[in-house]
């Protein structure tokens, strides 16, 4: 009976080819839009969070600032500077700190490799810097080690762009590099990474060396900035407060002075991003659902037309014994058939587009599109609901037609 019914329904729909196709297209397009919009939203979100974390995850970058409150006999507007021992000092004072590293920076330092000259930014850091700031060495190479620190080795870890500029297509690892006319051995190259946030420039254009080596050559008195991460991410605010307290004690500024110790807390940004992208995804979802509703109206429209055109046929069917629910289910099945074909083809088209888009070189902007099962399931549920609502009215009308009136129409 059901199979017979389906065959009959298919024949009836093929009588209305153009209308059926246009309606199918409405649902098809709605499905494609919803899936693509949601997938895009997710991709942009995950890419942004990934590249944001290219700089490091849940870290605090600390600079010395100017006091804005007079305190302890000092006038306001005093420029603070971190001394060499401050990283050790904070590690002792603030147990909440998981990792910490000082960072020295020197800009436009001349670098020479086999006669090729170019200026780069030199950073000097501790080994802890690697984990906090996501410095992933390429296979077969490494970051600065505690032994490099201890022995003050003249070794450098370089950005992938530095390698490209200075060594071309050659592997830089193990080779010599002259910085300020002194030779250093390259021990590692960073793997290519997406990095949105930065200070002192992007990591791919920088050169890193052990602080001990650096201080032995340049003899800086002051640290440019500190990078720290809490043992427990959720205690980042407490850690920041403890750092301010400890530094305020050492450098005699008011613990309430927010400008004396500027801290860039990436967890705050993460939180903002997550809120922003949730809103963004909801917005895209609403746009998609609107499109689907338009498709649903199209379905309701064609079904009303079909019922209208077949009024006399419905009357005949009722006369030869079709019960109301037979007519009702016939038109509901018909509606479902249209939207099922539309949904499935729209779904497949969306998958095809996703595959094509992933081939295009736009990864830097939107990242890789991945169709999540949750998106597919939600889309299918929404479409089913819209279809049921769209199909119910016409089907109900068909079933409640007065057979006497219907036959003679």
């Amino acid at each position, binding site marked *: 009976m059901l199979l017979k019914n389906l065959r*009959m329904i298919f*024949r009836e729909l093929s009588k209305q080819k153009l209308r059926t196709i246009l309606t199918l297209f409405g649902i098809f397009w709605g499905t494609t839009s919803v899936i693509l919009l949601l997938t895009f939203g997710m991709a942009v979100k995950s890419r942004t969070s990934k590249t944001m974390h290219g700089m490091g995850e849940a870290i605090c970058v600390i600079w010395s600032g100017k006091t804005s409150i007079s305190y302890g006999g000092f006038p306001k507007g005093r420029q603070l500077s971190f001394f060499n021992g401050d990283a050790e000092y904070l590690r002792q004072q603030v147990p909440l700190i998981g990792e910490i590293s000082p960072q020295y920076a020197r800009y436009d330092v001349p670098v020479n490799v086999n006669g090729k000259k170019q200026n780069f930014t030199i950073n000097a850091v501790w080994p802890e810097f690697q984990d906090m700031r996501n410095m992933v060495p390429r296979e077969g190479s490494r970051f600065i080690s505690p032994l490099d620190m201890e022995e003050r080795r003249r070794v450098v870890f370089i950005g992938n762009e530095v390698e490209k500029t200075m060594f071309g297509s050659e592997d830089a690892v193990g080779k010599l590099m002259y910085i300020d006319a002194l030779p250093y051995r390259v021990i590692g190259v960073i793997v290519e990474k997406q990095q949105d946030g930065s200070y002192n420039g992007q990591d791919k254009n920088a050169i890193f060396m052990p602080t001990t080596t650096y201080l032995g050559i340049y003899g800086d008195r002051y640290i440019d900035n500190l990078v720290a991460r809490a043992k427990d991410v959720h205690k980042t605010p407490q850690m920041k407060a403890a750092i301010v307290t400890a530094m305020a004690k050492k450098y005699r500024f008011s613990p309430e002075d927010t400008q004396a110790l500027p801290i860039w807390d990436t967890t705050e940004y993460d939180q903002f991003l997550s809120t922003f992208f949730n809103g963004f995804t909801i917005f895209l979802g609403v746009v998609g659902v609107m499109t689907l509703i338009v498709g649903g109206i199209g379905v309701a429209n064609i079904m009303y037309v079909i019922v209208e055109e077949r009024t006399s*046929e419905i009357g*005949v069917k009722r*006369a*030869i*014994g079709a019960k*109301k629910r037979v007519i009702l289910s016939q038109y509901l099945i018909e509606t479902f058939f249209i939207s099922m074909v539309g949904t499935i083809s729209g779904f497949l088209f969306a998958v095809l587009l996703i595959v094509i888009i992933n081939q295009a070189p736009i990864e830097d902007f939107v990242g890789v599109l991945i169709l999540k099962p949750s998106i597919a399931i939600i889309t299918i549920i929404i479409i089913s609901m819209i279809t049921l609502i769209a199909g119910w009215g016409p089907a109900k009308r068909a079933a409640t037609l007065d057979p*006497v009136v219907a036959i003679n129409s």
Partner: protein
Amino acid sequence: MIKMEKIRKVYNTGKIEVEALRGIDLHIRKGDFLTVIGPSGSGKSTLMNIIGCLDKPTSGDFTLNGRNIKQMDDNTLSELRNKEIGFVFQNFNLLPYASAYENVEMPLLFAGVGGKKRRERVTSILTRVGLADRMHHRPNELSGGQKQRVAIARALVNSPSIVLADEPTGNLDSQSGQEIMELFVELWQDGNTIVMITHDPRAKDYTNNFITLTDGMIQS
């Protein structure tokens, strides 16, 4: 088999009340071939709809095989129409996208008859009306007379108690009309009960009983 007593039917179209049937008393026995003759507007179609259980009378008693239809709900009436009544319409009313076979099969589908029995029944009834070689043709590939034969086969396929024909020859040329009339007579001789509405007074010559309807009343 069919008993009608003081059947009245009033249509309410806005302000005006139209009394289509004004007290019909009618008795149809098994094996009758009744012709209902009358001019248009005399209430023929209304009578037909009531006999066919498509419409309920405003007042009066109507019993079919001893069952009063007054209390029946829509589902029961649908079943009744499916099993006990076969309709033949003036303009055939076949489904245009279905073959002759599928058109005839439809009442059996609504009745939930199984596949094998359905095939036997449809084949034998189409053969009976002389369309054994036209079973898989669509209506637009059939002549008017052949279409009406399909419709008659559809009416007979569930072995109904009564066949109702509403001007079955009205849309046919005289030759085909003659053949359809002869087919009805043959079916009657096979033992079917038939009620035929027509405005052609000659039709009564074929049948064993006739009534004339004027202004919603039987003139005898």
